[in-house]
């Protein structure tokens, strides 16, 4: 089948997609966007988290055909060509990236969390990121990164005080 959708603002057409393929497979193997990760392909780890029409979903659970005509946002679309997004920068500064396999999914999930909550409480962060497994960090530095990103993103408006 033929698939047409918009990924990170660019319209994409892909031919010969087999019906059983997931959106994750199409992104990674047919569109050259392997940033979204394939840690489980069972909907259990969140490493494949992408935006589908603005909502974070596990791309491994979305059949490719379901993406027809829709807007998809992946980790590759978070930063501009030069500067990193503050969420990406905060993950680096906080030391929240070890192997980094969980990172793309966590970045998209955190991006969404901060968009919805501004400065989430730790409890809110834990709830929001409960579907994103990380095997390396024990999550402490991921929490640090979320706080750091939220603070930095709030700063221009809030004048830096908390």
């Amino acid at each position: 089948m033929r698939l047409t959708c918009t990924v990170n603002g660019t319209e994409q057409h892909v031919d010969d997609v087999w019906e059983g393929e997931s959106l994750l497979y199409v992104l990674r193997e047919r569109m050259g966007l392997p940033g979204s990760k394939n840690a489980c392909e069972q909907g259990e780890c969140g490493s494949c988290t992408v935006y589908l029409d603005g909502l974070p979903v596990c791309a491994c659970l979305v059949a490719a055909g379901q993406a027809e005509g829709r807007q998809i946002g992946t980790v590759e679309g978070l930063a501009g060509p030069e500067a990193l997004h503050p969420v990406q920068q905060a993950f680096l500064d906080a030391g929240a990236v070890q192997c980094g396999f969980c990172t793309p999914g966590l970045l998209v999930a955190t991006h969404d969390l901060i968009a919805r909550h501004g400065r989430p409480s730790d409890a809110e962060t834990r709830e929001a990121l409960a579907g994103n497994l990380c095997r390396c960090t024990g999550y402490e530095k991921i929490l640090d990164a979320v706080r750091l990103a939220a603070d930095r993103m709030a700063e221009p408006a809030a004048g830096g005080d908390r």
Partner: protein
Amino acid sequence: MSTPTRTPTGAPEHLTGPGSGGVGDDAQRPDGVLKVRGEFAYGSDLWMEDMLWGVTLRSPHPYARIRSVDTSAALATPGVSAVLTSDDVPGEKVYGLELADQPVLALDVVRYQGEPVALVAADHPETARLAAARIHVDYDVLEPVTDARTALGHPTWNQVHDSTAEVTELSRESAHLHPEGNLVRHLKVRTGDPAPTADVVVVGEYEVGMQDQAFLGPEAGLAVPAEDGGVELHVATQWLHVDQKQICSALALPPEQVRLTLAGVGGAFGGREDLSMHVHACLLALRTGRPVKMSYNREESFFGHVHRHPATMRYEHGATRDGELVYVKAAIYFDGGAYASSTPAVVGNGGTMGIGPYVVPNVHVDCYGAYTNNPPCGAMRGFGSVQTAFAYESQMDALAAELDMDPVELRCRNAMEEGSATPTGQVIDSPAPVVELLRRLEAMPLPARSGDGEVDLRDMPGGVSNTTHGEGVRRGVGYAVAYKNVAFSEGYDDHSTARVRLEVVGGEPTATVHTAAAEVGQGLVTVEQQIARTELGVERVVVHPKDTSVGSAGSTSASRQTYVTGGAVKAACEKVREQLVARAERLVGRTVPDLRLAGGAVVSDSEDITVPLADLLGDDVLEETLEWRHRPTEAIDPETGQGFAHVQYAFSAHRAVVDVDTELGLVKVVEMACTQDVGKAINPQAVVGQIQGGTAQGLGLAVMEEILIQDGKVRNPSFTDYLIPTILDMPPMRIEVLEYADPHAPYGLRGVGEAPNISSGPAVLAAIRAATGLPLTRVPVRPEHITGT
């Protein structure tokens, strides 16, 4: 043939880190930007235009004879390029880390469920899977042996008060899974009085379930056939050169024709020390003449790598009335599963360090590794020490209770210190701050109890499932301390190779560090840069992609890379520095005793000398390559276990605070605190990250993680049923890092990664026992162990 379009670790210039950050700094990872952009190429991301997909057909049976394999229907499937069986393995048909006993593809017998039987390459992964399902294998199913003691013909334990001495010698009556019998290794430690007596005796039997490394990046790689008849393999792994050696043997090719490059590694934790898809992808690539990618899905990953050995252990501790340990007897059984993997070394650790960081005059330990028809077990973070720590720390708590003594006090009274002898007769010749680690934990404030005031369900066991508002919830606090050898032991020639080049690039002195040491997420690439910056006084350090065009760095395991490869990089930098200093002295025409490298120049503090490296080098390139070794260890005596077995020990301690819903058996870990001596924190942020991650894996084993095996079959090969800690399961952590230099190690550093993985689980178990008053001798603790239902 061309190289992959996405090079595995990015072009060298991408690995240039920020322009500061020497030894002791929180330098940022050179691969960090690629990772947050989604551009870091992991093994499963590799891709080439004309590549095929390889898949593995695995045995559904834990033990069976293969009568025949019919591949014709698979081969006839449109899109399929090759179907291979063991007949197609040109070289040695078996491989292994320590003993070559594992078939590349099954020969006449399969010994575990999931054993690879055949391979398929096709133009789409689904086509390959479909074709694999069409391979007809005729099995004669045999009765599996699924218990280590049964495999060895040892009596099973059923009464706690039997003496450990009752373990009989091998009867060799059970099925011989391997021609030499089912014993992989039996390690004995004997010291002091063989028949000691004591005022107070505590006996316990303990069991540890099979844990999975559960790294998130699946086993994956891309094999590319080369014009010289060889193959280039880009693969996520832990030790390129040991892979290369085994691949060469299976392919019957010389090392020059089997070139490996490290692909991005999504975590390892020991699970990538053995081969997985390596030889398989090479076989398919060589047969088809096309690049072949293999990438396991999560279910296959559970069958595709070795696990942590499950253990059954029986301990007897004798002490004086005032709490001095008189003796420890222990029998430790590791279930090695179907093939040896690193079982001999795991037995080595389990046996030599099996009584914990305590001074005990009389020790009698028997540690066994056995073949069974369970999944093969091998390396996992903590390597033989995780299992025994559950047992010996539980024993210390039981003994404290028997003596009516504070558990921390009992531990401190018997703790090792510098100058103490281990049960293997090795004198600890660097700091061993066991007492301080424990006392510092004790001094930390305890977390407030939730429930004083409004109840937040999220703080309760069971969380928002709304299973309790605090009724039936009891709090417990537990302590544990552990130690672990760093680097390879027992006389192994443990070394690493580093090549350091210095040249002027764009007017700036630039160092390039080239080692084959696998970066698996821990941050070794950062450490390599930090060391070069400090030793050469330059800012710009490029980490060369990791490959086999430089000598072996040894394994990324045993907490050894910062020590051994760090030591090699340091030594290579020193040789480059010698050349620079000699050049500077030639330039100034005399010897200057305090010349050093800083700020991109050779400088002297006593004299006004600053020679920029750019001037000193001009167009010259200085390069040094050397092999570096830590001081040698020695084999232990086979009858007594005595000997200088381990080059260094790492020490850590944990305090766990838990809330337990005693009615439902649900556990909420409220806080973890850890103290660890790291000798010298080369990168403090990364050190803390290792402690946090290790703590999480230990907690996971204590309360949730287990590969469930029934009759040799894995019942939960998915993240749906094999649970690892989520961000909701992990509590806040308090961490104190101590830096007592080890005079024998580069910068005084101590390996970091494993120790916190060892002490955390036993602390959680102790805390649950404290909360419930139950003996709890098995991990992971399940709700039914607490409720008794």
